[in-house]
């Protein structure tokens, strides 16, 4: 049986599955239930000077019949008194001494930071997370993402914290910044023990077409919120990679957050170098029970791959994440349709004809709706295989013999790249393009 326990910057946890600081960690009751259900750690709902919230608080993107492909919230930090939270942290730790309880904090002044750190340490917290992420409400008051977006301010606050903290400190970053390495480096320079990311993305999730107000609507008005859930995972993965590949940050433990719902998501974050993962939306959607699927899947994966601990594959994908200029320009794939699987929706045809490279023809056989790939026109973009509704019906076949390898970098060095607007070396120079008039053939 593989060992999935972790030691994250000194915080020990029976598994890498943590609840992110959010409504699911609002109370001791919830955290206890979560630990019972199988979660290894919990980052408590951000503590500070209690807030007053509005109703309603959430909006979501439903993708067709899929509920909450993305979730947007305008909730603030905890609205419960600090003393109540501290008492519950203490109680939870009594029941679960081996689980990780991390106190998320957001306050303003140095004195407040010093005070609250002492308080949570006394309550028995295993670690601290600094919330520099909240992109709504709190930032208007100079906290949350207002800090996350100002690397210098962030560094100063991390330094204040490090002056007094006796337990590990995780700095949680906001993605609402064009270059995530800037706050990442600031946190590192400030002395943080670990980094977690991403917090929510500043968003407007939709507009009500009757009241003309953004969701969620609070008495006829709305405000920008923070976006999270499955839709943001790709952004989170990329930002994690930016940090785990950075020479000055890569040795700092990273806790991956953003759109995690299944074991596959967990493994992806770990492969990009995350040492723990945090989950919010998936629990808000399905409850604590989803951790069963994460744990079973992770164990199965590790067994199949022969990994004994998380550290056997942490960061294993990083060597394969490179820059565009190092990709092999000689690699060639071409789409192939499995005729026995094709249902004849012709979506690949129209996707390629309207949205790609006119490399798919409709069948000319009577009664057949199985399209044909025009090999010489296909640029191997993948679009058709992504559009096809049938599992494994369109696959991308390798056509190069694997002996050639030329990158943009190498071509640049060799002076073999297009340099003028009408350069003969343009990648699409000899590629088939229908005539402008061909478009008229489709008029009915």
């Amino acid at each position, binding site marked *: 049986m593989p060992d999935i326990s972790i030691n994250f910057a000194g915080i020990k946890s029976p598994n890498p599955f943590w609840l992110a600081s959010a409504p699911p960690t609002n109370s001791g009751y919830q955290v206890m239930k979560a630990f019972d259900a199988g979660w290894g750690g919990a980052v408590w709902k951000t503590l500070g000077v209690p807030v007053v919230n509005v109703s309603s608080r959430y909006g979501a993107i439903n993708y*067709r*019949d*899929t509920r909450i492909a993305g979730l947007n919230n305008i909730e603030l930090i905890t609205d419960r008194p600090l003393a109540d939270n501290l008492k519950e942290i203490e109680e939870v730790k009594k029941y679960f001494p081996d689980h990780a309880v991390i106190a998320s904090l957001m306050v303003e002044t140095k004195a407040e930071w010093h005070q609250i750190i002492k308080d949570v340490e006394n309550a028995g917290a295993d670690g601290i997370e600094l919330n520099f992420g909240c992109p709504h409400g709190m930032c208007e008051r100079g906290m949350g993402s207002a800090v996350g977006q100002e690397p210098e301010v962030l560094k100063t606050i991390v330094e204040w914290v490090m002056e007094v903290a006796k337990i590990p400190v995780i700095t949680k970053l906001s993605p609402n910044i064009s270059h995530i390495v800037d706050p990442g480096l600031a946190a590192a320079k400030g002395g943080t023990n670990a980094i977690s990311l991403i917090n929510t993305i500043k968003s407007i999730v939709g507009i009500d077409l009757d009241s003309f107000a953004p969701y969620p609507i609070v008495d006829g008005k709305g405000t920008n919120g923070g976006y999270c859930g499955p839709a943001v995972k790709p952004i989170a993965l990329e930002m994690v990679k930016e940090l785990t590949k950075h020479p000055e940050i890569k040795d700092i433990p990273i806790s991956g957050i953003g759109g995690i719902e299944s074991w596959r998501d967990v493994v992806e974050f770990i492969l990009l170098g995350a040492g723990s993962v945090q989950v919010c939306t998936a629990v808000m959607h399905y409850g604590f029970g989803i951790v069963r699927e994460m744990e079973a899947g992770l164990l199965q994966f590790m067994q199949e791959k022969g990994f004994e601990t998380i550290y056997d594959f942490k960061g294993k994908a990083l060597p394969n994440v490179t820059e565009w200029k190092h990709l092999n320009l000689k690699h060639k794939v071409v789409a192939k349709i499995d005729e026995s*699987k*094709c*249902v*004849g*929706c*012709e*979506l690949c*045809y*129209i996707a390629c004809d309207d949205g790609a490279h006119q490399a798919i023809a*409709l069948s000319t056989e009577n009664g057949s*709706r199985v399209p044909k790939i025009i090999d010489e026109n296909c640029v191997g973009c993948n679009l058709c295989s992504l559009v096809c*509704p*049938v599992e494994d019906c369109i696959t991308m076949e390798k056509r190069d013999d694997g002996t050639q390898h030329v990158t943009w970098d190498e071509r640049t060095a060799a002076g073999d790249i297009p340099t003028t607007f009408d350069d003969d070396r343009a990648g699409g120079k000899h590629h088939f393009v229908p005539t402008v008039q061909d478009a008229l053939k489709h008029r009915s």
Partner: protein
Amino acid sequence: MVEYVKPTNDKEFQENFAVKKPLMNPTEAYFESSRCLFCYDAPCIQACPTGIDIPLFIKQINTKNTTGAAKTIFDSNWIGNACGKICPTGVLCEGACVYNHQDVPPIQIGRLQNFATSHAIENGIKLYAPGKANGKKIAMIGSGPASISCACELRVMGYDVDIYEAKERPTGLTLHGIAAYKISNEEVIDELEYLQEQLGLNFICNKPIETKEQISELENDYDAIFLGVGIGPTASLNLPGEDFENVVGAVEFIEELRLNHHQTKVPQKVIVIGGGNTAMDAASQSARLGAKQVILAYRRDKDAMGAYGFEYKLAISAGVDSLFNAQPIGIVGNGKASAVKFVKTENLNGKLSNIEGSEFEVEADLIIKATGQSKQGAFLSLIDGLELDSRKRIVVKPDSFQCTNPKYFAGGDAVNGGAEVVNAAYDGKQAALGIHQWLNS
């Protein structure tokens, strides 16, 4: 298999005849519409005789533009609500849905269609208005789906339309012939009234057109005439004893049932003669009316039946027994039929022949003949220059549905010899365009 108890009131009747394709609720419609792939040149559209843009209306349902979805449907098919319920979708749109090729249940197009159209009907959402009056008048003979479709299209273009109907109530077989478990009388009438309110169709009921004089009058009063007369009553089998009172035609039996519901008298033992969809409907409905024994008797074998497989299955699931290779040769009885005399048949090199000496009798208190309907030949012969084909179907030009007498246009069963409501809907609409073109050329 269900055993039906004889319904004694309308509530029990409705239970036995519960609709096969109930209305979707919004959640169901949302989930089902989410599955549609929005196929290119979608095969479901090609399979719909009226060519409804199915992926479009499904997407409109999914984006909560249900009114727009209803308009997409009615734009192609004026009888869109009834069609969603009564079309044999399994061999039309749903049969063509690409999902079938991967053994995934096809999109329930018919039910989604009804979700949209009934939204418009129930809420009285006005989607159409009569066109500016152009001073021209068109007469329809018959008020079935073919005529209604033609009339609606003509009204939109500004024509005045009068619809002459022999029966007391309009809508032809939609009301009087379709199996009661497919669509209720209210649903048929609601759709008609919905169209009626928007377009003002003028029905003149209890007005059979039967004489040469009436025809000349119509020809004088109207700019064009549409023949939507359908096909006639059940044809005679020329069997001895066929005139006994308890030997009835299937179409007449179903009409009585549609109008009288539980008051329709069905005895213990019923034999339905025939192998087409009408036979299946008559048998299914006899069972639902509480007959203890319903036997479907067909002269050929099971595979040779004209009925759709799903209609046969539906009859069997209602408790109907079948008897194949049984050719009726006489009705036994004394003033009242008590049995049908059959002879067994066999298929000899593709030719059906009776097996000598294999005669047998099966008892019955009611014998329903579902062996085809007579054609409207006699009536149609009153119209000058109207060509009929060898099967007494009106000959029309393929696109305009114009008859050989150019003042006449025709569509529906009278032209195709008996198909579906959806075909009648298509014909009627096309004929309206044909009339418009002819009058403006």
